[in-house]
């Protein structure tokens, strides 16, 4: 009984043009759901998104569409729509990120879907949700990280020190949209658990406000956080001889061990620094000393010694460091799969596992319409006039 996955037996139809909805589908596929991408005739726009692989394919799509199936459905065409509904009838979850204004024309309006598929969890994933005054607003990644509040607070620490006058900074890639995807997958599985078919309305903005809830909490405490004042008083991003490390000591014993790691220099053994408030007040002095000392250290050696002493420190790993890392290799978090047009590609498994082994990644991202015959098998015979 090798390779049983938690969502084996669950079928999902995904109509996604954005990262959030596609990532929700990817997470469900990673956990064993059978996910059908219902691509429009011109194919998913995610197939044309950077970063690109050497063969010209999209690495983003390779990651998001691993383990999924692909069918082509023209929802502007009655036959295509009939085939689509045949597929949805056999599914438990429909993921859709069609803008609200375009839904009715494609037969994707929630009322129509619930009437035809009352059993279904209809998961809507939109930048600002399907309901509310801003439901029609467009939102790209950079807008959403700022609509959610975290964008305003970045950068802090070393980047903010070096470039105090620059505009705020986004997080790499599709961070905010992926938060929407994780939230959407959670909401869909929860709705499915209830046994009640229903419309589930996920907003990427809401998801980012949720994970950024600490800023709302601090606001309730009377403080509006700002990127230039949110920095840790000492520690943070520290440059070494051959890269950067992150250092963060929140507890007293961690500070004491850091003093040991530094070799107990005079400035660090000053009795005044045994008081945490005093350390915060002298953070600039502490960090100037730590930065000067770290310049000559090697990342690997320093992190090993720090963790040995119980000082929380980590290397700023490059992608290559992660692909070849001892921890990542031991946990087999990457799987190699064949992707049409690209050969073998490495895909990270889900960041959680349901036992000692990682969830397997079994198939690379499919060609457009690779599973068209499966679509046909879902269509009642009288409606079978649609060609791939």
């Amino acid at each position, binding site marked *: 009984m090798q390779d049983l996955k938690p969502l084996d037996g669950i079928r999902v139809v995904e109509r996604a043009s954005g990262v959030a909805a596609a990532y929700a589908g990817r997470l469900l596929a990673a956990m064993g759901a059978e996910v059908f991408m219902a691509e429009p005739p011109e194919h998913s726009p995610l197939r044309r998104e950077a970063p690109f692989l050497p063969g010209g394919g999209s690495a983003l799509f390779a990651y998001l569409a691993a383990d999924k199936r692909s069918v082509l459905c023209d929802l502007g065409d009655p036959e295509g729509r009939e085939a689509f509904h045949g597929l949805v009838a056999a599914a438990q979850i429909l993921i859709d990120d069609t803008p609200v204004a375009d839904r009715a024309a494609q037969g994707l309006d929630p009322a129509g879907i619930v009437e035809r598929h009352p059993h279904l969890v209809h998961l809507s994933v939109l930048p600002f949700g399907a309901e509310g005054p801003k439901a029609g607003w467009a939102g790209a990644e950079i807008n959403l990280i700022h609509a959610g509040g975290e964008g305003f607070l970045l950068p802090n620490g*070393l980047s903010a020190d070096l470039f105090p006058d620059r505009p705020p900074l986004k997080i790499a890639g599709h961070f905010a949209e992926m938060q929407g995807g994780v939230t959407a997958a959670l909401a869909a599985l929860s709705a499915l658990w209830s046994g009640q078919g229903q419309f589930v309305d996920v*907003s990427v903005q*809401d998801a980012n406000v949720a994970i950024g809830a600490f800023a709302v909490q601090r606001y309730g405490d009377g403080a509006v956080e700002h990127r230039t004042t949110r920095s840790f008083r000492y520690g943070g991003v520290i440059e070494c001889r051959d890269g950067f490390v992150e250092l963060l000591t929140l507890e007293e014993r961690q500070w004491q061990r850091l003093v040991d790691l530094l070799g107990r220099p005079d400035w660090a053994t000053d009795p005044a620094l045994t008081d945490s408030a005093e350390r915060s007040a002298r953070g600039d002095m502490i960090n100037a000393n730590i930065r000067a000392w770290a310049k000559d250290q090697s990342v690997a050696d320093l992190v090993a010694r720090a963790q040995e002493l119980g000082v929380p420190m*980590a290397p700023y790993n490059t992608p290559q460091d992660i692909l070849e890392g001892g921890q990542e290799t031991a946990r087999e978090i990457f799987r190699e799969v064949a992707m049409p047009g690209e050969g073998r590609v490495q895909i990270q498994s889900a960041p959680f596992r349901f036992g000692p082994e990682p969830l397997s990644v079994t198939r690379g991202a499919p060609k457009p319409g690779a599973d068209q015959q499966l679509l046909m098998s879902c269509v009642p015979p009288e409606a079978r006039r649609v060609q791939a």
Partner: protein
Amino acid sequence: MTRPLEGIRIADFTVHAAGPFCTHMLSQLGAECIKIETALRPDIFRKPHAVYGRAGPATFDQVASNKLSVRLNLKHPEGVALAKRLVAVSDVAAESFRAGVMERLGLGYEALREVRRDIVMVLVSSSGQTGPDSHFAGYAPLFGAWGGLGYLSGYRDGPPLEMRHVMDHSVGMNAALATVAALHKRRRTGEGSHVDVAAREVASSLVGDALTAAGAGVAPERMGNEDPQRAPHGLYPTAEADRWLSIAVDTDAGWRRLAALTGRQHLASDPRFATAAARVANRAEVDGVVADWTATQAPDAAAAALQEAGIAAHLSWRASDIAADPHMRARGAIVDVAETGDTTRAAVGFPARFSGSDQPGMTRGTPELGAHEEYVFGELLGLGQARIGDLIADRAIY
């Protein structure tokens, strides 16, 4: 109409941010979450926090909210025995100690399976339960560093970017997802699960596309606010100081609409800007002409006008903007809850709406330590008042 996870019970051993966010999400979805605490080592929000200038316990803590609170001293054999009895009547046991701590307390997966055969045990840690780094301590900025998210974020000519609480809470959101998936597996197979959530793997999963590219020999680097295929794409100044406007133009038609909106129609046909490739190649000039316009604009009106023209735009919002937003309040994404001292404040509701439930996600603020022991120890576990009193006197309940 009830919330989707109504009827699920969680024995919640998690502390700090990532683990408690997981169970907080599940509690907002309707699960009954029992937070297990001890006065011997209070969770972070019950203590002063010098970094945030807090001299005493927090009057409100988002991730502890909506939960029930009981005290259990897990260094006491009777405390451990009670913890097991609680797990025996729960569907989920969640924890976020360093790998190995629960086993040393006598509360490892096998021990919990003995009292509840189909328990879903969720273990949240920095590096996972296995591997050479499994014992490593970590916080959000370290997860981001290990996972590559930190390296890939930042200005092109600057250092990596330090990740903060959103990193912790991303881990918690993933853990909540995995927990509900494990419940589905239990429903189908009758089997529980050992759900191992590694924070640094969550960080790397958020740049999984870049890792796939790197694995194929294409090395991605930091690119600040840039998008490799789009310009304008960034944060632009407005007429108000430190009030930034994010704009992302996706298509050539979008660029033409922007040119018209700004009254600079000649830019639409300017060969330096007419196509996406040209705009990307002349990014600095594009940013310059866009900023010339935005810098004269009132922030909210500019965002609304851009959206009206079909261009993705939003102000860089502060927490104060979010707390007051009519859109988020209409969605129940911002709710008012009671905090200690009977005042109300804005808190964050569950980030999804369910047509099958009209119940709010948040119904309680942060519980006082041990506030729900009568219900949990008395009603759920069936202990009499005298027995509870003895256990308190013996500091098993402490």
